[in-house]
């Protein structure tokens, strides 16, 4: 398909793709914002949520925070390489970022398996419903981001569509930031 001329115009001077990514993030902020505000309102009304939160594993959650932040650093390196036109290097850093995502998901599934085996399931009460749904929605974003990153990396390797490396980086930082909110709310606030 031929790119329309509309796509190449830039009245704001911001490239169209970047503009769209920011709008995607804006709508994501409201989705997660609604979910987290709902949780916070419940948390304030139910002191017993603190007791439930005590059953979460802060060490694993903390490790995952570290893993995600590190992967974000890799994404920054990928952007740096892409900006200098070194597609192959950018791809390598993107693969490292995906590695971070996989590591995050492995730790997460380990954590969930233990909790579910201990009877702390999604249906137990509203806290655990929020816990699994909020972290699950975030996890879906990690998976989606990783898949898109692989596609972009395979293009970047051939020095194609290098500007997309920055776009996925912006998205990846957002996924990171969401976790930065989830971690204290679900794990630390006891």
């Amino acid at each position, binding site marked *: 398909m031929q790119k329309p001329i509309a*796509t190449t115009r830039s009245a704001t001077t911001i490239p169209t793709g970047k503009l769209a990514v920011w709008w995607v993030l804006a709508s994501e902020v409201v989705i997660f914002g609604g979910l987290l505000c*709902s949780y916070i309102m419940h948390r304030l*009304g139910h002191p017993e949520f603190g007791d439930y939160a005590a059953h979460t594993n802060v060490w694993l959650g903390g490790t995952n925070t570290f893993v995600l932040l590190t992967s974000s650093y890799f994404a920054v390196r990928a952007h740096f390489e892409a900006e200098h036109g070194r597609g192959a290097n950018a791809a390598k850093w993107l693969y490292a970022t995906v590695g971070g995502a996989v590591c995050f998901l492995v730790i997460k599934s380990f954590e969930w398996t233990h909790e579910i085996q201990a009877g702390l399931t999604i249906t137990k009460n509203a806290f655990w419903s929020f816990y699994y749904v909020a972290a699950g929605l975030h996890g879906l974003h990690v998976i989606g981001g990783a898949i898109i990153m692989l596609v972009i990396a395979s293009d970047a390797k051939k020095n194609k569509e290098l500007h997309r490396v920055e776009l996925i980086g912006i998205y990846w930082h957002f996924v990171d930031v969401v976790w930065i909110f989830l971690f204290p709310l679900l794990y630390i606030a006891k």
Partner: protein
Amino acid sequence: MATPAQEHSHAHDDHAHGADGHGAHDHGHHEMSFWSKYVFSTDHKVIGMQYMFTGLAMGIIGAFFSYVFRMQMAYPGHHVPFFGVVSAAEYNSLITNHGTIMIFWLAMPVLIAAFGNFLIPLMLGCDDMVFPRLNRLSYQIFLLSALVLIASWFVPGGGFGGAWTAYPPLSAKAQYNLTPMGSSLWVIAVALEFVAFLIGGINFVTTAMNSRAPGMRMFDIPMVVWMIVIASILFMASVGPLIAGAFMLLFDQTIGTGFYDPVRGGDPILWQHLFWFFGHPEVYVVLLPAVGIVAEIITVFSRKKMFAYKTVLYTAFGTGILSFFVWAHHQFIAGIDPRMANVFTATTVLISIPIAEMMFVFVATLYGGSIELTTPMLWALGFIAEFIIGGVTGIFLGSSGADIYFHDTYFVLAHFHYTFVPIAVIAVFAGITYWYPKMFGRMLNDTLGKIHYWGTIIAFNGIFIPLFLTGMGGDHRRIYNYDNFPELANDRLNHLREFATISLVVLIFFQFIFIVNFFWSLKNGKKAGNNPWNANTLEWVAPSPPPHGNFAELPNCYRGPYEYSHPDREQDFWPQNEPA
């Protein structure tokens, strides 16, 4: 930064390129198969048409539902022609799906997606949306959502019947709503619809920000484009919590989570907050594009510059912001803190000010103009007259003291139909009759158009004025058969209900005139030419109907969209693309 001049030459080069046989403009000359041209097209006009016809088809289903349950109201327990005897469960499902369809599958796809897709690139003077394939994806998800909704009526237990607001615990627990599959499919359909409009909205906003014709400044953008863009942003900013809420409801229904279950620390009122935090901005999401359509039409047929363009625009922004602070006026009797009810009363009454101001501005545009009472102009004027009734009755309901008595009566129902029918029906007809020549290259028949207009407007008032009266007489919205309520089954109220139902049948009858006119004119209407209304905006520069790529040469923009009857000119219009 590319200056407008550079950008212009850039667009120009691209165009020249196209003329050589490589560019986007050349696509029209290729033989495209039926499938790639009409079904899997990425052309914004085709996608707009897909949205329009899907939306109108869903609207016909929604209208049929209203016919069935109105017949049940007027003649309870009788056999309804084309349907049969209405059971209580069917009645609940019909009203639920009527509301859901009319808002999510008629008003939104036609007002925002159909007009947005068709008009934004044309009015901005570019060849397509910035993301054509995302645009196609948006329609495909929308179509899927419509199919899921339709499927939900045919599963065991029948369609969801917990009203379009879907309050838990009724919506969350199958032992209460008795529609174990119908209610889940309903939630999935609505969530998919939201996703479709998020994708579409991002496309609209980005296109309007980046792809304007060289020379078109922010304040040269036609009002209807602004309104659709503002509506898309409002939608984006309000729907998120409800998407989260919809998943929470779906999980409560299917895997038994406890979000809305007080026994396990959840709260059913949470849904009401999430729903109305979206639901009230949603009113403005559909209202603003309707207002935009009306603004275009009134200006063109007054042959006068739009009065207070910037004021309307700022007012729209103000309305949008304020619309996030009124949602709890739907919950005055849901057990919210009475002090909060006072706050929400104040914000709700406040929001009538910007809307009233827009209506005054339109009257000011009419004042002293050379008014042409064409069919689209009649619809636009009808919009103002009818919407004002909806606005004024809203003040009764926004005031918590009065609302406690009116809540859940037919007064509420009549009120919001006086807002939604002008939006989803009157403004839609205004838009279709106005842009039909551009969409299909031929004029609609004016006489048939006027018969359709008067039949619709008079019958519409015939439906809902009686319902204000029954509402004040105590008619509750959720009653399936008034014969079971002796104090409401008196002759006076029965006659009003019957009058409303007969008016509805008349209104539906008049729609056949429109359908005949629509299809007859496709072949037999007068050829429209590029600019049959002598309008200024850029879509009228393109051929009718516009080819793939829209313009023979992408236009430049030299002035605002509403320079009508300029004193220095012989002609009473001054197209945006005409050099000074």
